[in-house]
């Protein structure tokens, strides 16, 4: 059993957490090369789609939205890992949060950058995506603020800016420390980023205030962002989409998949960067309990959503409902239930089984299950519009699969670069002096 981080000397903490920053071993380089190849391949697929027309993807009438929008919702969901969890933990002064918040906040920023790309990749004419931005233009036309897509654009850009600030603020003291010790280009890099931080009392007080304020703001923004993402669907009159439960349902799903993503990332960096002393079984246990809670909430919403549709027995909704429960999509549906509820419930609900290993396993199944959930919300509804003559089945092509794979590689790559530039666990928060301040 590793000692609690509070009992390790600050010098040693700094040594442990700074060590991964310097040098790049052959394994690191091999992984970076592999991931870059996947990203490059995805880039080629997108270029091909732009050149040949979006018809090279599998989307078709009537399934006009599919993989790209699934990925969009999935990644925006993952982004709730971070900020929302870290903000809750910060605001509630949960002291155990210290080693996990930065890892979470970084996930948020990267997941948003990736998620935000998908509406653009998905556009028929991606090169004019900026027509959605309100600016005085030659078309003499403002965008249509009645469209949920505009709400989306507003919400996500706000969230991206907010969460970047929220990631950056607690980084400043660490960057300042690094700039004192680094050499070469890193010295200039850290010095510029530290914004002239000297560590005076006044600066600490401002930082504390700013972090508290941003935690409050980001919480509200995060809830609104995923509600707006849900409204992209529920504002329409498509069967099973037009549902008032979608806002909270999506927020719960987002936090659920966000915690799973955080646990997975924690478990990877713990192993590869030898942070066992900092990311302890205690953290996995606490976050595992949170994951279990979200799993139960998710089940509650899923039952509420499907039971009301089934009881209402509206023919066009029943087509979609039936295809999910016992029709074409039912294998995916029941895998989703297994991955999102049964596995987390068994492994996290039974105390004896709740270990670092099983928590990581459950978080992987939750991530797969939540991806399937978004697929099952989007594709069945579109496959079965109200007039049966237009029904049609969707399957992805290599273009969509390549681009999807590339986004996962992008996430890993961004994280690898981040972990080379900044300590993934906040160093200054272990400093006895700043502990008093916090």
């Amino acid at each position, binding site marked *: 059993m590793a000692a609690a981080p509070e009992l390790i000397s600050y010098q040693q903490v700094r040594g442990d957490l700074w060590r991964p920053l310097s040098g790049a071993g052959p394994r690191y380089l091999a992984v970076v090369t592999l991931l870059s190849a996947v990203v490059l391949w995805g880039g080629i697929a997108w270029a091909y789609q732009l050149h*040949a*027309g*979006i*018809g090279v993807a599998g989307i*078709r*009438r*009537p*399934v*006009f*939205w599919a993989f790209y929008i699934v990925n969009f919702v999935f990644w925006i969901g993952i982004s709730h890992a971070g900020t929302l969890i870290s903000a809750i933990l910060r605001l509630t002064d949960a002291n155990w949060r210290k080693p996990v918040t930065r890892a979470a906040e970084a996930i948020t920023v990267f997941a948003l950058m990736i998620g935000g790309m998908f*509406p653009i990749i*998905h*556009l*028929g*004419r*991606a090169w*004019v*995506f900026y*027509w*959605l931005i309100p600016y005085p233009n030659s*078309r003499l*036309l403002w*965008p*249509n603020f*009645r*469209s*949920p*897509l*505009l709400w989306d*654009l507003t919400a996500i850009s706000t969230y991206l800016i907010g969460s970047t600030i929220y990631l950056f603020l607690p980084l400043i003291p660490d960057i300042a420390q690094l700039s004192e010790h680094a050499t070469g280009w890193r010295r200039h890099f850290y010095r510029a980023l530290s914004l002239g931080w000297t560590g005076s009392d006044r600066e600490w007080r401002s930082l504390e205030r700013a972090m508290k304020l941003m935690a409050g703001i980001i919480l509200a923004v995060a809830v609104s962002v995923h509600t707006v993402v849900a409204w*992209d669907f529920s*504002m*329409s*009159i*498509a069967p099973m989409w037009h549902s008032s439960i979608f806002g909270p349902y999506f927020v719960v799903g987002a936090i659920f998949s966000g915690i799973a993503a955080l646990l997975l990332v924690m478990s990877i960096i713990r192993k590869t960067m030898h942070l066992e002393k900092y990311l302890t079984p205690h953290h996995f246990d606490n976050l595992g309990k949170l994951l279990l809670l979200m799993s139960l909430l998710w089940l509650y919403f899923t039952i509420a959503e499907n039971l009301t549709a089934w009881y209402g027995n509206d023919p066009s909704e029943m087509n979609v409902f039936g295809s999910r429960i016992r029709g074409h999509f039912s294998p995916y549906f029941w895998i989703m239930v297994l991955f999102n509820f049964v596995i987390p419930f068994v492994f996290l609900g039974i105390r004896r089984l709740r270990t670092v290993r099983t928590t990581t396993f459950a978080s992987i199944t939750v991530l797969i299950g939540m991806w399937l959930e978004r697929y099952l919300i989007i594709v069945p509804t*579109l496959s079965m*519009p*109200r*007039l049966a*003559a*237009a029904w*049609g089945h969707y399957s992805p092509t290599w273009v969509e699969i390549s681009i999807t794979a590339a986004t996962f590689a992008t996430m890993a790559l961004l994280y690898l670069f981040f972990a080379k530039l900044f300590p993934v666990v906040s160093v200054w928060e272990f400093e006895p002096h700043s502990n008093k301040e916090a």
Partner: protein
Amino acid sequence: MNEESKVEHRWGMAIDLDRCTGCQACVAACHAENNLPLSDPESAAKGRAVHWIRVDRYYEGEFPNLRVKYMPVLCQQCDEAPCEPVCPVYATYKNPEGLNVQVYNRCVGTRYCANNCPYSVRFFNWFDPVWPAPLDLQQNPDVSIRMAGVMEKCTFCIQRIKRAEGDAREDGRTLADGDIQPACVQSCPAEAMIFGDLNDSESKVSRLAGSGRSTRLLEELGTQPKVFYLQRAK
């Protein structure tokens, strides 16, 4: 004065399902008139075929005592069109004559409108359109060709409406009922389709729309369509 009378038109259509034989002449005529891209069987099976008007088939009874009902479905030109508010760039909007128009140049291809159309009558250009020779030589100069990445749909042959209105203005007369015929209406051998001004209570379409046989498709959604289907009450 002419400008005022222009705004007063409210174009609508009546389709007599008891007359429709399902011959698909309307579909062929629409293709020729509106420069619709062609598709081969493979791309049609992939859901890439574009037909601004289609003939849905409904079967009643069991073989051999089978009755087929045909229903031509085109853009219903809804007064409360679900496709309109969701477009982020105003590529689809209601024009002053109540037509639900699509501005190809503005469209960025979010395809939200297509998801929100309960009639599934909106189509997307997955690729730049191609016509095998010699069909590329018979395109209608009055209708623009749509590029890859934009939505399109039935316009009620707006090019014919505009031409008829312009002609009437030049001749100093008002439009008479039946002056305008969209391609589908013109080519229907059973004369099952009637087009006209719903604001003119004397027009044929107004009288048919008000008849006891008149219903509207998915009327319960509150979309207020301007296409009226006529059929005997059971």
